[in-house]
């Protein structure tokens, strides 16, 4: 009985360590440029409209929650751009998630080939959301879900709402829960 208990304890410890180790490597919000990067090929909305960018991995289940949260929030006075990551020669086509994005009214859907725009904006995780003001300053960056695939109130969404309303930059970046965008970046998933 004691041997069985010891075996179970060791197995449990290894499992928990692996889980914790996995969890610890995630939750990277990325490093968005403080101002709208000049090298991007994306067009700004122009006028007094802020730009909302959302980087998406088309096969990331957790990003569904991000879209749910954003659908309640997408402002009429901002230009929303979804950047769909597509690796080189992957042959990925619009799947159900992309089709859903396309159906979201005024949203712009852009295929981000090999994640070039993601690199320019410092996005490394699907669901990474950033908001640039009309004058090009960074107002918000990070995730808008509480946890993996979690729908419901969270600080990221609150801060994004506040930034949209006031135009004042959020004080901190928020963890992003999603799959890695482009290559093996060391991030696995959050």
């Amino acid at each position, binding site marked *: 009985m004691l041997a069985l208990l010891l075996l179970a304890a060791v197995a449990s410890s290894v499992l928990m360590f692996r*889980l*914790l180790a*996995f*969890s610890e490597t995630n939750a990277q919000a990325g490093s968005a440029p403080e101002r709208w990067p000049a090298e991007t090929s994306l067009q700004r909305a122009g006028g007094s409209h802020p730009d909302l960018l959302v980087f998406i991995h088309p*096969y990331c289940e*957790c990003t569904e929650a991000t879209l749910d949260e954003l659908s309640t929030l997408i402002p009429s006075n901002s230009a929303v751009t979804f950047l769909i990551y597509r690796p080189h020669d992957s042959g990925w086509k619009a799947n159900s998630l992309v089709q859903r994005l396309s159906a979201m009214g005024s949203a712009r859907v852009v295929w981000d080939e090999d994640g070039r725009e993601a690199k320019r904006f410092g996005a490394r995780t699907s669901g990474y959301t950033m908001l640039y003001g009309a004058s090009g300053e960074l107002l918000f960056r990070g995730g808008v879900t*509480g*946890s993996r695939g979690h729908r*419901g109130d969270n600080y990221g969404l609150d801060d994004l709402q506040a930034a949209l309303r006031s135009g004042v930059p959020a004080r901190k970046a928020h963890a992003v829960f999603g799959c890695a965008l482009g290559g093996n970046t060391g991030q696995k998933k959050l």
Partner: protein
Amino acid sequence: MRSFFWKTAVRPSSMVAASTHGQAQATRYFEEAFEKLSSVTDRMFVLLLGAEWVGLVITACVISPRVWSGAESSIHPHVLAALLSGPAFIVPAMLFAVLYPANRWTRHTIAVAQMLVSTVLIDVSGGRIETHFHIFGSLAFLAIYRDWRVLITASVVTVGDHFVRGIWWPESVYGLLTVSPWRWVEHAWWVVFEVFFLILASRRSIGEMWEVAWSKTQLHEDAYHDFLTGLGNRRLLREEFAAARKRDSSARRGVLYIDLDRFRQASESLGLAAGDRLLRMVAARLVEAAGADDTLARIGGDEFVILTGALEPEGEAEELASRVLAAMSKPFDLDDQQMLLSASIGISYYPKDGDDLSGLKDRASRATYAAKAQGRNQWAVFSPEVARREVIRQDIRRDLQGAVKRNEFLLEYQPVIRNNGQLYGFEALLRWKHPVRGMVEPADFVSLAERSGGIIEIGEWVLAEACRSCRDWQREGGLEPGVAVNVSSVQFEDPDFCERVIRILRNSGLQPGLLTVELTETVLVRDLPRARRILQRLRGEGVQVALDDFGTGYSSLSYLTALPADIVKLDRSFLSRDFLDAAPLIESIILMAHKLGLRVVAEGVESAEQRAGLRSLRCDAMQGFYFSAPLGGEVLSRYLAAAAGGQRVAEDSDMAGAASR
């Protein structure tokens, strides 16, 4: 589990003061109930853990089935974690529950597994708040065990997990809602808070289980124990015997059948309340004498049985019987008086003398009769010889019926001699001339006749025959010796006793003053007012009343004044010891009797020294073998003729011998 719960569980205060046997029984009931509860809960956890494992895998697959790194996908670590939770801790806990049900280590293993399921679920869901409720659900479920230590284990696992992850990997347990690395303290507090109340509820519930166990014990005590003495009853004896046989059917065991000698008389002289107290004292002595493995039961008024534990050496039951006799030999203190009791013990052995309790008891009780026949206050082991004697006893009991009609009884008369040596009278002594067995002593059949009720008919015959003989002595020899007739308790209790005596006396034509009715004190004090009425009526008719066997057992001098009597018959036991030692006591009784106007007759005089001593103490009359053995037939006629011839019978102890020649 036993010692664990004995030390920790909440027991009702009433139980603390209970007997060791009661506590053991209540503990047995409690442990049975707790074991049942644990087994059922273990099985529930087997199902729950299995379902949780499946649920965990499904949850992981729904939330994050695959992980993508750019264009590469792989199974999500959460799915792997959910799958591996099975072999890591869920399946071991389930195996423990199946292999070691109701074991406390199983409970703790299940508690650890259940709380780890909660932590994995929280991690898989990214620390979403809803999954934290799983922890509280798990704790509540674990509380079904009502084992507070399991709850402590569960809370230690959860608090430890939250501490480690809260400090070093806060987002894995709190998700984005991490405000501070110290948030784990808040989580731990809520866990401790819930566990505190669950422990309170568990302990309360355990307390209630003890109450139930104790109530069942009390019901059991009532059903299986003698209310008066607290010893077991027949039912307990039967079940303990069956259980002992089931444990080890080849083990040798003894059955001791204990019958208190003359307890009924003692109880009657003391009164019912004191008799009950005496029985309780006897029971306590038996408990002291018996061993821890022995079962004691009271199966009748003054009948007890001890079923011994497994016996190793030969004679162990006999040793126990000796211990019982030794325990009984010490005086019993009852208020201001001391009682002396003895017991007769019969012993039978399982499996030698039988393999069922009823048979063993029966054989032991037969051995008890043998012990009584040998003079009481001893033990006897059942044997074929004992069985043979019992058969004889049964035969005698059967043959007693109709013995009066068949004229098989006869009377012998032992002379009673005055202080001056003159013949005073005779005591009529019953004899049974059995057609097959020859002369049977009264000791061998009177008690049987009393039990069957045949003593009424026999007693009537004795009285009539004694009166007739006495009247014949008057008519034929011109002598006027009185005749004394012994009356048993059964005769005296007969509602028609008084009328019957008067009727027989009148029918015989005997002068009433020549008839003496001898009654023992214990017969009379059973219902003192009634006894006084009867004695007054008999004395009113002119019949003499003698208090027989005075000085034995429970005699009280106060009865001398309370009972209307004419004669006190000093018991032979006074003369069985050194006369010089007994003389002061005899003298006191004689003096007191004389002051109360009673005559004193000493029984059992067997030597000239005793006769001379009694004479010097002014004892009114004497009887015993020194003067004459009981006489009958021709011998009696010659004795009467000699007495009528004017010989002083007391001075010539050869007279009886001459008469017999």
